[in-house]
């Protein structure tokens, strides 16, 4: 392999990982926008998505059906959690809310352990075929799926928030819940909807990478932390910002692992996060 092909290979893996981070960050942002809450249980939806789909596919359910069923299950789970556990905590402090979502993540992880056991599971790739050769670098077909899914999801989110009444209502709730409710928007329903969306996208991220990963009940922690980083670098409430930050994060990680050091790639990423938080607390892309 030549140097160019190495660089391209790192690009591929960077975009793959970055897309996953971007999806998780977006799922966090959607929940954050309407609930002003960062959900520490988001990594669990990643795991539930991946493992539900793996189980369904191994039981002989056709891949497209398994795909949509897994998303719907995650959405219902997310909505249920919002309705039953988060809503009663309306007046709690940020610390208490964080610990509540931690408690939920513990319970969900415990549930995943009961359902899927301690072993790792791998999903077959969405489509069979040889990797495509690009200037000496191998492009696995699943990477195309991951990037494609990310692009479609981002387009749908953009369309939803900009063009549909429900999306505009959701933005209104994020801006000013009281004002929105005066305008006749059902804020509770909108919040519920946002949680369903967020959980679904979190699950989707897990499903998309499931063929490239050994997923087990504890696999959600690191993707979630990276999603947090992307979200914080992008400026907590910004979908576009967190997508760019997620992709950037994936690329930085991939190139530092490839070119500098695999040992310190996480040190660099987290130092980057601290620097952004301290020097640009509203995100890297905000106009201050």
């Amino acid at each position, binding site marked *: 392999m030549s140097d160019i092909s190495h660089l391209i290979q790192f690009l591929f893996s960077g975009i793959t990982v970055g897309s996953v981070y971007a999806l998780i960050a977006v799922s966090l942002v959607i929940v954050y926008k309407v609930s002003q809450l960062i959900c520490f249980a988001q990594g669990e939806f990643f795991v539930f998505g991946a493992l539900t789909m793996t189980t369904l596919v191994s039981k002989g359910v056709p891949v497209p059906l398994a795909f949509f069923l897994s998303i719907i299950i995650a959405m219902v789970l997310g909505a249920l959690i919002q309705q039953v556990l988060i809503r009663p*905590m309306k007046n709690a402090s940020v610390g208490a809310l964080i*610990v509540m979502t931690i*408690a939920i993540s513990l319970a969900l992880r415990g549930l995943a352990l009961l359902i899927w056991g301690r072993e790792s599971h791998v999903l077959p790739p969405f489509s069979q075929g040889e990797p495509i050769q690009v200037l000496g670098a191998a492009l696995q077909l699943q990477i195309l799926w991951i990037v494609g899914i990310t692009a479609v999801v981002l387009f749908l989110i953009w369309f939803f928030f900009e063009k549909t009444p429900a999306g505009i209502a959701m933005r209104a709730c994020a801006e000013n819940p009281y004002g929105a409710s005066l305008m006749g928007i059902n804020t509770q329903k909108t919040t519920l909807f946002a949680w369903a969306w967020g959980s679904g996208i979190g699950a989707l991220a897990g499903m998309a990478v499931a063929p490239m990963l050994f997923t087990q009940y504890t696999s959600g*922690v690191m993707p979630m932390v990276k999603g947090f980083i992307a979200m*914080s670098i992008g400026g907590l409430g910004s979908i576009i910002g967190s997508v760019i930050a997620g992709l950037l994060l994936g690329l930085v990680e991939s190139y530092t692992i490839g070119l500098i050091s695999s040992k310190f790639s996480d040190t660099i990423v987290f130092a980057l996060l601290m620097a952004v938080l301290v020097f640009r*607390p509203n995100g890297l892309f905000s106009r201050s």
Partner: protein
Amino acid sequence: MNALKRYWWLILLAAIAVYPIIGKPSPYRSGLLIFAGIYIILAVGLDLLMGYTGQISVGHAAFFAVGAYTSGILTAKYGFSPAAAMGVGVVFSATLAFLTGRPVLALKEYYLAMATLAFNEIVVTLIIGFEGLTGGASGLRDIPPFTIFGFSLLNHLHYYYFVWIVVVLVIASSIAVVRSPFGRALIAIHSDEQAARSFGVDCAKYKTRAYMLAAVYASIAGSLFAHYMGFIAPDDFGILTSINLLVMLFLGGIGTIFGPALGALFLKLLPEVTYQFQDYELLINGVILIVVLVFFPRGLFGILTALKNKIVPRTGK
């Protein structure tokens, strides 16, 4: 009854002192209580920062790591005495907290949570990265047991007493801190930073000091942990440990000192009861925490105080 209300902590002290004599615990049992004690030190320190000063930290295990690794490396590789190494760890942690405190604590709520989380990960990845010094991911071994004045605390009961004396000192000093003018300034910052500032409280300075104090306690806990285990690995000090500490605080009742101590004790002894449910353990832990958060926002300590007030009605003075 009034005497009981005032001196209940003496009964607690007596129970801690007498337990090994009456209970004759196995090394395993006393080991559990040693761990619980170490986590109580961590939780009480974090309570000063979170419960009283109102500053979230999702990275407190970073200072636990600094204490443990300073002690471990200096005693195992450079022949320091454990007490001296513990002292170096304390100074090192306090300096680190002093240097990072101001910029990090200028952040609020989620931003602060993310920054402390990042700090924790940086410390852990550095420990993993500098393999030559720290043993890397596979851990640091051959850490000698603690010695005081040449007397080695090899016996588990000796170490039990040593750790719990430190626990009592940490709790007593924390109560003294909270009742001091410094503590009142911290509480003022918690309830309203703007107002505190307009009354002349230098918020950044006080927040950094609270952070340093919490870091010092965590560092001591780390040293105690390293010498008890004889072996430490980065896994013991990651974000999950920090998150566990948060859980202890809220489970026990944040901002009460005794609450987080109770939370730590409860969470460290709970596996003794739930281990028999094996795979259900994680789910049970999560559900207990959810139930406490939803129905008892003041935590286990809140439940106890409510019970006590029922049994011993408040007398008007």
